């Protein structure tokens, strides 16, 4: 930074998508009020969705989506080999996301169901870190542009970046929302990492945990709460497995 006597450099970035809805990449083009400033931080080397330019000298790779096909394994390995910093971008990349819901049934059955037996290549969905090492994770379905901005600015200015460690309830209470448990619903806010500004509960829908577990979450106490309130364990299970973000916890406990 200028006042500290060093010049900042734009980050050479590549944005890549795997199996996903591309909603997270789309966030990069959102928050239009600061978009020109945001783009000015980046030197976009490879971003198929918005640019025809394809250069392979990126330093940071934003990787969106989960891995569901053998060719994707090769592609992610190649990206890992090039990128100094690999960022798992969005819930699918960080945890597998909704894609993992298809893992519940055998893949052949899934193909039969959707493609009438036409040969389609697929395999059980995996998160990025199942294949290659991930340096940073930016969870969210979709990611919060505010957080992405903060992290990119952090990288450019060489300041360290971190995610909130506490759960969504903090932000939710700060929005003066009515707690969904008071309305008789199960909300994953108490066990989910904050940083989304409690956007779902502010819209009065339950948190489904897209940002993954808050640090040191207390699962036994959370289960106790569901039981004590007489809420449906079935519903809890559906919510915990929605984004695959509570993987081991969800399957052991419910």
């Amino acid at each position, binding site marked *: 930074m200028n*006042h500290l006597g060093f010049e900042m450099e734009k980050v050479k970035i590549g944005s890549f998508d795997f199996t996903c809805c591309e909603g997270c990449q789309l966030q990069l083009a959102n928050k239009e009020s600061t978009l020109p400033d945001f783009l000015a931080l980046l030197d976009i080397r490879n971003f198929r969705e918005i640019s025809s330019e394809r250069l392979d000298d990126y330093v940071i790779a934003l990787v969106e989506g989960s891995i569901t096909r053998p060719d994707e394994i090769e592609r992610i390995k190649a990206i890992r080999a090039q990128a100094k910093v690999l960022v798992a971008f969005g819930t699918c990349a960080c945890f597998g996301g909704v894609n993992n819901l298809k893992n519940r049934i055998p893949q052949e059955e899934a193909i039969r169901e959707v493609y009438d037996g036409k040969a389609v290549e697929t395999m059980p969905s995996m998160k990025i870190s199942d294949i290659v090492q991930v340096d940073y994770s930016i969870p969210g379905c979709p990611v919060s542009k505010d957080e992405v901005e903060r992290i990119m600015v952090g990288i450019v200015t060489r300041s360290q970046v971190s995610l909130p460690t506490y759960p969504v309830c903090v932000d939710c209470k700060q929005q003066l929302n009515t707690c969904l448990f008071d309305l008789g619903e199960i909300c994953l806010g108490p066990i989910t990492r904050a940083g989304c500004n409690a956007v779902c509960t502010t819209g009065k829908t339950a948190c489904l945990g897209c940002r993954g577990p808050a640090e040191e979450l207390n699962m036994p106490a959370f289960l106790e709460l569901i039981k004590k309130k007489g809420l449906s364990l079935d519903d809890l299970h559906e919510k915990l497995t929605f984004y695959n973000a509570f993987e081991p916890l969800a399957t052991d406990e419910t």
Partner: protein
Amino acid sequence: MIYKVISKREFKAFIDALVRNNSSFGPRKVDTGSNGEPIYQFMPVKSVDEINFDYTVTHSSAKHFFLPYRDELSHFNFSDGNWEQEIQYESPPIILIGLRPCDINAVNILDDVMLHGAYPSPYYLARRKNTFIIGMDHLPLPDCFCHSMNRHTVNHGFNLFCSDIGDSYYLSINSSKAFNFLKEFRIEEPSYEDNCSLIERRKNIKNSFETKIEVSGLPCFLDIEFDSPIWQKWGDKCLSCGSCAMVCPTCYCYSVEERFDVDLKGSTRQNHLYSCNLVDFAQVTGGHNFRPKNGDRLKYRYYHPYRGFAANDNQQICVGCNRCGRACLADINPKDVINDLRLERESCMICVSPSPDKT
């Protein structure tokens, strides 16, 4: 203090005139809980009809009007390898309607913390000075325990306080501003009957408390019980979600964060209300956490309000509104925790020195 009486009807006209022309906040029903009970919060109001004067209690306290959940402390403007620091703490005037005595006491406690130490906070002062507070008494809910904390009455810290004496309100006017506004409305000197009604009302409130917490000697108790296993027992239930501290009218601990503007032409230093229950509250560089366990952190959530901190004369800062207890999904509340603590200690005393048998 000047005492007057105003008919409820006239009072509404008065409030209406106020809220129509000023940025005002009052209790409003925001939802109906699954148990059928209405849920209230202090929300913006534009006319008197939007205010629920007969509300019970708001889920969140009014502290964020004085200590916003996020607040900008200063801004740095960068230029040519240099920077300027800019600090702003102006705040527009607002009216707060319907605060309970415990809520006003809570603001008075925040005054102590924020204004009476070695480093008074200009941000807080600006907001405090520009807030016009109209208090109202109420019959306690079954779980209110402000009486135990001796915060069920209040005699300062508001502009106007209204006690419900049937068809009218008994007004305690505590500021010339309030007095001037009221001059334009039909207010009367309290009659003998009015005074009697007020005393009756106070008695009635005082006698309606169902929840009692024994707080005498609690500070010393808490010091002795610092390492009690009770904390881990309750800590095991705690979700470390911070809800209790967010809704509490006196919890004020915070975190400071600094962020670059996206155009890199400046940066902002913000404070963000935090909670001692949150996992990294006492974590330092290198990862050492002075309070690694839920129990260690929950202990501070109790230690602070009931032990009091040395810096503010060890005064207990809990006002007994039980908002934390209501907000807690894990059913952790001051009454149960403190009683448990006392019970353990007392049963312990008994085994050490059994009382002589009655003969």
